[in-house]
């Protein structure tokens, strides 16, 4: 098996507060290969904070600590802000939820994509434009020349998110973290946007972390799934086998989902056990042990 693209051991993110420190993320350990890894959990479970901490985007007063945080052979813990800026975009990239807010409203989308290319690859204007047009083509935008000149308010949500993906992948990163990339989109375009992301991630041999609250989406798209609760990973399972999940939290969530064709008078409500908050000290193994390859 090839070496992991990303190795995380005992990651924690702590926010100081008046009544003591709050650990938004704790005891998080996993490694990512050339696979699609899903992180699911409810709001406040620490899934987005985990993604941001890896990207070096958890800002003070948050404190990030880890025994190991390796991107390839780069130790992310010892990088200066300047070094991190070079890595972000070039080696690792992030797609956020709503393209309306993550695109610059006063710059044409093509220029935004080209800017990434120029920044990280030191290319000329002409080279960057050519690369941006190719990239727009790669995310299945039919008329790249026309879309290149468009401004973010002129594009639909689905197109905006494909433009974000183009921008994030143009400098050839090996890790893509997508935080709820399709939650702001219509259900009918979700699959298309994910297919395009999947196609590019596969072609380029990248690793993908998909952060989402949507259990169905993650289990049908990813290879492996981490389930987070109260800042910790409580379960790791093969995505296809989410139905066999063992942890009562995962099982409770699955049961609470309404299902087509299985109408219940009353949906079972999640009963939270205080014991789920206890520190999990030994890193979990994937339930089937196969992992993603």
């Amino acid at each position, binding site marked *: 098996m090839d070496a992991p693209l990303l190795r995380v051991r005992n990651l924690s993110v702590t926010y100081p507060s008046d009544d003591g420190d709050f650990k938004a993320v704790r005891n998080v350990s996993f490694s990512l290969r050339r696979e699609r890894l899903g992180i699911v959990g*409810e*709001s406040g479970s620490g899934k987005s904070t985990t993604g941001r901490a890896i990207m070096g985007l958890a800002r003070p007063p948050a404190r990030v600590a880890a025994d190991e945080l390796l991107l390839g052979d780069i130790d992310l813990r010892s990088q200066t802000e300047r070094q991190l800026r070079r890595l972000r975009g070039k080696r690792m990239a992030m797609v956020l939820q709503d393209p*309306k807010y993550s695109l610059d409203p006063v710059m044409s989308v093509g220029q935004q994509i080209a800017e990434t290319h120029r920044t990280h690859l030191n290319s000329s204007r002409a080279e960057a434009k050519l690369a941006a047009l190719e990239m727009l083509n790669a995310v*299945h*935008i*039919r008329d790249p020349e026309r879309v290149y000149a468009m401004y973010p*308010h*002129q*594009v*639909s*949500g*689905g*197109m905006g998110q*494909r433009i974000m993906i183009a921008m994030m992948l143009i400098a050839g990163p090996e890790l893509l973290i997508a935080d709820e990339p399709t939650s702001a989109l*219509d*259900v*009918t*375009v*979700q*699959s*298309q*946007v*994910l*297919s395009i992301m999947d196609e590019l991630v596969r072609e380029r041999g990248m690793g993908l972390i998909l952060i989402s*609250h*949507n*259990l*169905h*989406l993650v*289990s*049908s*798209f990813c290879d492996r799934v981490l389930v987070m609760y109260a800042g910790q990973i409580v379960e790791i399972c093969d995505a296809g086998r989410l139905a066999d999940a063992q942890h009562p939290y995962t099982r*409770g*969530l699955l049961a*609470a*989902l*309404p*299902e*087509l*064709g*299985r*109408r*219940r*008078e*009353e*949906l*079972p*409500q*999640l009963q939270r056990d205080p014991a789920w908050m206890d520190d999990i000290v030994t890193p979990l193994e994937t339930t089937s042990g196969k992992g993603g390859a």
Partner: protein
Amino acid sequence: MSIELERVTVTYGKGAKRFDAARNVTLSVAEGEAFGLVGESGSGKSTVLRAVAGLIPHAQGRVMLAGTEMGRKRSTAQRKMVQMVFQDPYGSLHPNQTVDQTLSMPIAIHKLGDADRRVSAALEEVGMGPTHRFRYPHQLSGGQRQRIAIARALILEPRILLLDEPTSALDVSVQAEILNLLSRLRRELGLTMLMVSHDLAVIAHLCDRIAVMNRGEIVETTTADALAAGDVQNPSTQQLLRSNKGFDPSGGDLDLLDAVPIRG
């Protein structure tokens, strides 16, 4: 109280800029029934809900509640009968008003009196105690806020409850609580419900009959059972059904992507 829509059209703009947000919508919901509207954003489902609530005027067609046609101006009594719950409880509750103020306002507007008893009864109805009565929205969780929004709708003792994506801003575990609350309210109070959602499983959980909307029109009226069996005719219903099952590796029709209207 029954809801009947006859060829209802809601229009924005004039002349060349005219846009029909809903076109020739005809549907009828029996008293005590829960009826669902599904579709993509921009398909007109919320527009229909607002037309029933009287929040926007309809250009053509008839909106009838309990057999009475609603005019341009509704009477206070007519408005009291139809109440609405919105998607985002973070946006729909006034941040500077306590739960008590939020719930007392409709009572004052409709001059019902007996505010104290009504507020505590409404809170109890949605499973919240007196401890929450003098809190501000920021002191409540998302699920508690949505309960307050439901209590605000119930406090006027309406006969029709309009639900616009009532659980899509909530976590899965909280969604189950709110859905259970809504089914209990329908059972116990005999409310007629018209619910909008993009989540077929949520709609089919609460509603027996479901209309699918696309570009302002109802393209298919079906049942929860038919949806579950995949027994649907219209391509946009089939597309919705596929999308609701999670990631669809076939990817669907890419042309559809570029056809999506600009989202405000």
